């Protein structure tokens, strides 16, 4: 039943829109201060080599230059760029220094110039001369895995992982299916590039860092330990962020800019150019996968075996964790009695690949769903039917972790989605149109997926919030939110407003700041609304409870008879005597001597999956290889949508990125030199307003019992099902079995030629 809420589920646009629409909102790169210094890095000019000489003499002559840093004058000390929390230090390999003598990919930073203006810093960078002793390359994964391959790190080039459940090898099955998938590298394309500002206060001997990061606490731990400073002397603040999609969750610039600010006792800002963002932040992993499954004749999955080889680029960074996660997702959608997973993450002399929206879900979904589409075709089954036969049911335990999938609604996504999309009708219409064997061919495709809503049970899911009533009855909520722009601040405000019945503009809710907020892991795993939202809700409920006690004392009645409506406390039968939050606060502080605040920590003990299905129809031009998306639909069981308009925005974003992954976006790497061949948007033609199809979205809003007001996560899953659905639609249209992403026009024309 629809509950009547004042704020929850209402389309109220985003938080901070006035600032954004008037250009007055301040992002990190907009920050200015008197005497602020600017940084630029010099990019290395070999793909693999040792620096033999650095000549900065000419660079020093550029006016305004204040400092030049290289491997020679910075600490020989490692940091972990992928660190989420304090405890994670041992998990990821520490391979990176501020500067390294050993250059492992073309464009890797070899020096930094700090100057009074960006132009000066840039000019000086161009004047630094670096000499190298070149080393042999390992551009491809295959080359890097050879026994005599050049070793990029002392720990070797390859990280290997294995997971299994049941006994896949022992499954006796008549039907065994094999497919292969290749996924290309992508850039996140957050509109804002990486930007960090670090300011050292001499008087306080303290460093303040502004960074559009996904984890202020992870950043602080990394910076403070790297600089040997107590945490009390490092403050990290998250300002507005111009999009992340995963590229702001690793410490790319934070250690360097912090080091420089401390060293120079200055206020320093570093903004990446788009080229630096593409080459020097990280890209989405390219990978090769081999999928094998055993399925009985009726279409019941008996087991799956997956072998993945993932290109980490020059540093492993978060790749081992990413790789493990891909395997860990194998049991989350379908009933699986037997799973075999083998993965390798391989360092190559190419730009670094790293975290990307969905942390493995888009990869796992592409690998597996394109496989199931193939299997369904071989079995002569409709792909929707095949999935209906195999998907997990509510409360099933996914076998690899033994955790419940919660109230994940695969069936509703499949049934309601195929009905709304008119799956059967469209499928038949496409087949009919294709009989003409004309220039254009038509096809439909679909895919199913799920994603997490928290870290549980892999980590203790801890989330805290504090709230206090101010003297005028307005509210301050302290909750460490890292909003990517997708509306999580608004979600928290709505939750607080709903409970305490305070208007949105009377709520102060700042983003994450290590100085005055409770601890948090950060914005990962689509967990923010589910876990932090719960903390805010519980905190506000407790605060309301306290306020009710005060009101009871003030009104002279029993605690449990206090009612609260429209921001007013009263009790029956004296309906006329009403107190607002301001009056209650006054009584509480001035009469009772108690301030009105609450702080609470919640521990999520669930990780309900969000299900997603995508349906799409394409028109393929067999002469040019161009693919037009005629219609598509994304369905997600988001629980209750706190911000329905933002959820739909996220869906549009996932479709846009997914189309890119499937059909057009690839940061090409030179197969000989390992250089990134695309360093701008000129040859990286993402979906624009003219090409973007008119997509449809469907939110299945069945409340999730454990989520705040029934909410689950949405931010990442939106990407996962798009690519496999599109690939299937193209294959349906052409009668091909393409699985090498992206399916660009040349790839499609080649496939048509082969079919002919």
């Amino acid at each position, binding site marked *: 039943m629809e509950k009547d809420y004042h704020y929850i589920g209402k*389309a109220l*646009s*985003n938080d*901070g*829109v*006035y*600032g*954004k*629409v*008037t*250009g*007055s*909102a*301040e*992002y990190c*790169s*907009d920050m*200015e201060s008197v005497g602020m210094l600017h940084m630029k890095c010099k990019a290395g000019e070999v793909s693999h080599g040792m620096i033999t000489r650095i000549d900065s003499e000419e660079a020093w002559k550029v006016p305004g230059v204040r400092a030049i840093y290289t491997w020679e004058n910075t600490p020989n000390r490692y940091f972990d760029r992928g660190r989420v929390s304090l405890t994670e230090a041992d998990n990821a390999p520490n391979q990176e220094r501020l500067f390294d003598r050993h250059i492992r990919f073309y464009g890797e930073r070899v020096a930094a110039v700090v100057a009074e203006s960006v132009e000066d810093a840039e000019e000086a960078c161009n004047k630094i001369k670096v000499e190298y002793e070149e080393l042999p390359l390992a551009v491809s994964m295959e080359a890097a895995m050879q026994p005599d391959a050049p070793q990029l790190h002392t720990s070797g080039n390859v990280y290997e992982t294995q997971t299994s459940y049941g006994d896949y090898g022992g499954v006796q099955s008549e039907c065994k299916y094999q497919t292969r998938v290749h996924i290309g590298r992508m850039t*996140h*394309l*957050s*509109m*804002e*590039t990486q930007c960090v500002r670090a300011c050292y206060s001499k008087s306080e001997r303290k460093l303040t860092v502004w960074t559009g990061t996904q984890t202020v606490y992870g950043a602080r731990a990394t910076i403070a330990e790297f600089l040997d400073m107590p945490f009390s002397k490092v403050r990290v603040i998250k300002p*507005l*962020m*111009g*999009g992340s*999609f995963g590229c702001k969750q690793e410490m790319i610039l934070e250690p360097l800019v912090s080091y420089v600010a401390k060293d120079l006792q200055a206020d320093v800002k570093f903004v990446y*150019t*788009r080229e630096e963002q593409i080459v020097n932040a990280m890209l989405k992993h390219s990978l090769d996968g081999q999928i094998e499954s055993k399925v009985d004749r009726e279409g019941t999955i008996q087991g799956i075996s997956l072998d993945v080889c993932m290109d980490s680029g020059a540093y492993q960074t978060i790749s081992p964790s990413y790789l493990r996660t891909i395997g860990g997702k194998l049991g989350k959608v379908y009933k699986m009695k037997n799973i075999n997973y083998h993965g390798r993450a391989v360092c190559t002399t190419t730009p670094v690949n790293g975290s990307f929206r969905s942390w493995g879900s888009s990869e796992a979904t592409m690998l597996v769903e394109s496989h199931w589409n193939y299997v369904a075709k071989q079995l002569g089954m409709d792909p929707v039917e095949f999935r209906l036969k195999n998907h997990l049911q509510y409360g099933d335990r996914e076998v690899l972790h033994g955790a419940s999938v919660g109230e994940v609604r695969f069936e509703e996504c499949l049934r309601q989605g195929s009905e709304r999309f008119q799956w059967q009708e469209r499928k038949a219409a496409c087949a009919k149109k294709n009989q003409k064997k004309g220039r254009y061919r038509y096809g439909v495709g679909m895919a199913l997926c799920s994603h997490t809503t928290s870290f549980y049970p892999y980590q203790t899911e801890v989330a805290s919030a504090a709230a206090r009533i101010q003297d005028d009855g307005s509210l301050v909520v302290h909750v460490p939110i890292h909003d*990517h*722009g*997708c*509306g999580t601040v608004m979600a928290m405000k709505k939750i607080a407003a709903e409970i305490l019945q305070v208007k949105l503009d009377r709520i102060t809710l700042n983003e994450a700041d290590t100085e005055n907020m409770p601890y948090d892991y950060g914005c990962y795993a689509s967990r923010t609304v589910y876990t932090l939202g719960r903390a805010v809700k519980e905190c506000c409920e407790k605060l309301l409870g306290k306020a009710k006690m005060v009101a009871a004392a003030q009104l002279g009645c029993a605690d449990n008879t206090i009612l609260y409506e429209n921001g007013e406390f009263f009790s029956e039968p004296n309906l006329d005597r009403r107190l607002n939050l301001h009056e209650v606060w006054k009584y509480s502080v001035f009469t009772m001597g108690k301030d009105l605040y609450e702080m609470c920590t919640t521990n999520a003990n669930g990780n309900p999956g969000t299900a997603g299905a995508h349906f799409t129809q394409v028109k393929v031009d067999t002469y040019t290889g161009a693919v037009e998306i005629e219609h598509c639909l994304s369905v997600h069981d988001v629980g209750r949508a706190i911000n329905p*308009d*933002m959820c*739909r*925005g*996220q*869906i*549009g*974003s996932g*479709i*846009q*990125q997914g189309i890119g992954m499937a059909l057009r976006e690839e940061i090409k790497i030179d197969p000989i030199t390992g250089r990134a061949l695309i360093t*701008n*948007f*000129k040859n990286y033609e*993402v*979906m*624009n*307003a*003219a*090409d*973007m199809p*008119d*997509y449809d979205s469907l939110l299945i809003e069945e409340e999730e019992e454990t989520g705040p007001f029934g909410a689950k996560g949405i931010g990442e899953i939106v990407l996962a099902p798009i690519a496999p659905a599109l690939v299937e639609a193209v294959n349906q249209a052409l009668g091909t079995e393409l699985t090498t992403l992206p399916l660009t026009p040349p790839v499609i024309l080649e496939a048509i030629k082969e079919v002919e």
Partner: protein
Amino acid sequence: MIIHFVLNGKQTTADVQADRRLLDFIREDLHLTGTKEGCGEGECGACTVVLNGKAIHSCLTLTGQLDGGELLTIEGLEQNGELDEIQKAFIKKSAIQCGFCTSGMVMSAKALLMENPHPSKEEIKKAISGNICRCAGYREIKEAIQLVAEKEEE
């Protein structure tokens, strides 16, 4: 070089470095940081401003070229505390997420509406196809522009 130009409706004179990018002049000298840099190569549209009634890339314009011109930046849309119709429409249609493309997107839309108050859907798409937004699927943005296009028809 001394240049004369109109900045958001106000006659202005400035001694500028003519070969500096207009984007840098706007952000660093005029301190109007609403105009953003997304790619620096005219491929993303984040730096769009309106010069002489036309949407242009401020990253591909030199400050000298501003001489004698009329410049409108995102900061110039709000008049006497009232948002421009297009700004209101962006808010109303939830067309703003991270906000980094918003200024450029709004300025492209503004330029379109200044020249063509009732654009068709196709004209809207074409006018903003040089502005990349990664947070959503352009739907809300198109709807916002359409809202203004239809409103003015009444």
